[in-house]
């Protein structure tokens, strides 16, 4: 009996180092999260004066790094904090419909029109565009190099080549579907992989499996060094990708910061910001073309 008791004590004592290690691991990982989360850091430094602007945007704008250049300027101008929620265009529009965000930056014209027509938004301003490109393995098994986008898609489909689609209702996915629509609808084949993820992961997956995928210029340039895929169809007019800012209708929801949202859209189409967009480059290449820039004086 006594032996059993001592044994139990020993067993308990032996648990301690393990428990301590677990605890440390958990505390450590949480510390890291807090450090990496810029919004929480900002919040703890000083409370903003004009409140918080919640901006839902597409992963492509965030991943390109453009927002990191533009947003701080707006924050210091208005003395506010901008919380960026990066999701696909579809999810961003849903967040807007639900009144969970004040302003949207998205790229899917048809969906934007529907959003405005349903009075979910009060303002719609296109302010820049970039291009999509079709990338694929350097060996180009489908022989799509320099074809028109629709013809290239048709070749990939008829040859049943490996193709990665984001499949997440994002602006890029919607554009793909538009092209398939032109070709009489999408008929999925075995190596048509819908991955339901952001542009970065999808591009990496296509690279791993040496497949084709449609990608926006910003994300491509960001990942260019890490991947072996090459641009095969680019700079086609039909692959133009216009971005718009939308103010969510404050009359439909409480607690929306309509004034700040309006100020943000004004900021985006203002001349200094438009020039900043024009000057924004990744590895020496301009990413976005501003559409509201007056001719140089």
């Amino acid at each position, binding site marked *: 009996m006594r032996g059993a008791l001592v044994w139990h004590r020993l067993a308990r004592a*032996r648990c301690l180092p393990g428990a301590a290690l677990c605890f440390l691991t958990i505390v450590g990982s949480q510390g890291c999260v807090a450090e990496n989360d810029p919004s929480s850091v900002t919040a703890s430094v000083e409370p903003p004066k004009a409140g918080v602007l919640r901006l839902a945007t597409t992963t492509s704008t965030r991943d390109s790094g453009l927002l990191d250049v533009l947003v701080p300027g707006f924050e210091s101008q208005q003395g506010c904090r901008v919380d960026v929620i990066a999701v696909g265009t579809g999810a961003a529009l849903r967040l807007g419909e639900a009144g969970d965000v004040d302003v949207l930056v998205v790229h899917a014209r048809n969906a934007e029109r529907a959003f405005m027509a349903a009075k979910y938004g009060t303002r719609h301003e296109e302010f820049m565009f970039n291009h999509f490109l079709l990338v694929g393995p350097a060996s180009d098994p489908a022989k799509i190099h320099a074809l028109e986008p629709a013809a290239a898609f048709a070749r990939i489909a008829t040859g049943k080549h490996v193709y990665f689609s984001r499949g997440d209702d994002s602006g890029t996915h919607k554009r793909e579907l538009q092209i398939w629509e032109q070709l009489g609808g999408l008929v999925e084949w075995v190596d048509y992989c819908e991955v*339901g993820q952001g542009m970065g992961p999808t591009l990496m997956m296509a690279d791993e499996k040496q497949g084709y995928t449609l990608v926006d210029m910003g994300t491509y340039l960001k990942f260019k060094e890490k991947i072996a895929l090459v641009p095969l169809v680019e700079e086609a007019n039909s692959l133009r990708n216009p971005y718009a800012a939308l103010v969510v209708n404050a009359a439909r929801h409480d607690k929306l910061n309509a004034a700040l949202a309006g100020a943000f859209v004004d900021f985006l189409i203002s001349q200094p910001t438009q020039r900043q967009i024009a000057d924004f480059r990744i590895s020496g290449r301009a990413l976005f073309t501003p559409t509201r820039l007056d001719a140089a004086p």
Partner: protein
Amino acid sequence: MELLWDGLTGALQLLLERDTLVLRAAWRSLWISGLAVALAGCGGIPVGFLLAQTRFIGRSVCVVLFRAGMSIPTVLIGLVCYALFSRRGPLGGLDLLYTQWGILVGECALAVPIIVTWTHRAVGGLDPRAAETVWTMGAGPLRRWWVLISEARVGIALALLTAFARCLTELGIAMMVGGNVKYRTRTLTTATAVETARGEFDRGVAMSTILFLVALLVTVLHAWCNRGKRER
């Protein structure tokens, strides 16, 4: 609240309508985690048992390492598997990346520390007199171990159930190694993440509800096992 309610009714509807995407994702989740736990059990139960029953140098270090292994984040396991299975990785030739088998390997790695630790605890927590009694009755080592394993069976069942619940509900490995490819590697958790990313919140809630129901079933089994343990 409306969203959650719509999600619940939506979940029932998806099940009743036999929505193929949902059912296939559910089935894939179940068989991958089930098989992963079975394989991890084949390795993990003996290891946990040996850790509890034998004495060797570095044994307590092993115990602590396995216990720490229970708190490895799944994204880290996913990342390691990705690095191994990548085209540029050492195991790239196996072509495991973005396949169900890749997820299976990752989930095994997730389940092993859980099973080892809980088996170790269950066997170690047995009344030492049990081993002594069998010993005095003249049983050989194999026979003795078998008696101990059957004595600790409730604890081992708990270990397997815990590991199963963890594998079933993890997202990091399934997303990074499986890649969430529609019709091929989409599981309930990655499907939930995707439907949410698409803005299809009601479908997301529906999927996670199904996941929760399965997890609930496991928990009930878990509790039922535990009850048996107390009564004895």
